């Protein structure tokens, strides 16, 4: 199964030292440079206020990460103003939330996908076909 059937283009930010301009009304999916995870706390990943003050949505609606997840977090990015972004720019912030009750880590959903996504076969194939 090719999870990237609906991907239009893949953009390598490291190839844009002068910044890559995000267009409005276009959904971009990115991922964090850092691996982030916890077996004890739930995570919330949101944008920094310095990003929000420029109208850049960083996570459209799902800020919550699962306990037991570890890896790059996928970012849903939408620009309400045309804005340049740069490779390795600080865009987000993670907070960790205490859980009440018994913890049963979820081991069979996107956490696996997140863990290996960057190196996955599908991603590489999509990359070779669609990168610009």
């Amino acid at each position, binding site marked *: 199964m090719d999870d990237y059937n609906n991907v239009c283009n893949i953009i390598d930010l490291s190839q844009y030292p002068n910044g890559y301009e995000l267009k409005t009304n276009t959904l971009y999916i990115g991922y964090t440079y850092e691996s982030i995870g916890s077996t004890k706390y739930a995570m919330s990943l949101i944008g920094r206020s310095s990003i*929000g003050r*420029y*109208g850049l949505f960083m996570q459209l609606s799902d800020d919550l990460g699962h306990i037991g997840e570890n890896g790059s977090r996928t970012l849903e990015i939408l620009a*309400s103003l045309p804005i340049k972004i*740069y490779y390795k720019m600080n865009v987000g912030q993670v907070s960790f939330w205490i859980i009440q009750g018994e913890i049963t880590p979820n081991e069979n959903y996107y956490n696996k996908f997140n863990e290996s996504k960057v190196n996955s076969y599908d991603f590489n194939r999509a990359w070779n076909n669609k990168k610009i």
Partner: protein
Amino acid sequence: MLKRYPYILLKKTNVATNSYDISLDRFLIKYSDMVIDPKLEANYEIIEIPDEGYELKKGEFHLGSSVETIGSDYYVPLVHAKSDIARLGLFIHVTANLIDVGSKGNITFQLYPVNNLKIYPNMEIAQISFWKPYGHIDLYNGKYQNSKGPQVSKIYRDF
């Protein structure tokens, strides 16, 4: 060492079930650059909302600010739209609703309408909830401390 406040200027009339209602102040900021470059200081204009209201056009981004000064040295404030406002299709923040513990000032709203709608000075558009942090607290003393009115992004200072 910053002085510790339990809260700032909470009026009883604004206290709701789980949160504290806050209002939109009179001034808005609209960026005037064709493309925002985070490495540079942005250009912008200041707009005063007249008493008869100001129409936000669908998709046009503005910054606004709260009338109230908000902050806490003990709790982490979170900003949310009032559901009345969300039901009209107005985002009051686009990503960063988490306020640093120890920060004090007017809240900057990141206004993004998905419909054309009018806004008025002093209308209640948002609510703040306060969350208890766990562990040691280092109070915020960053670049948006003591904000008065809407504050544009200062991310250029990070580069």
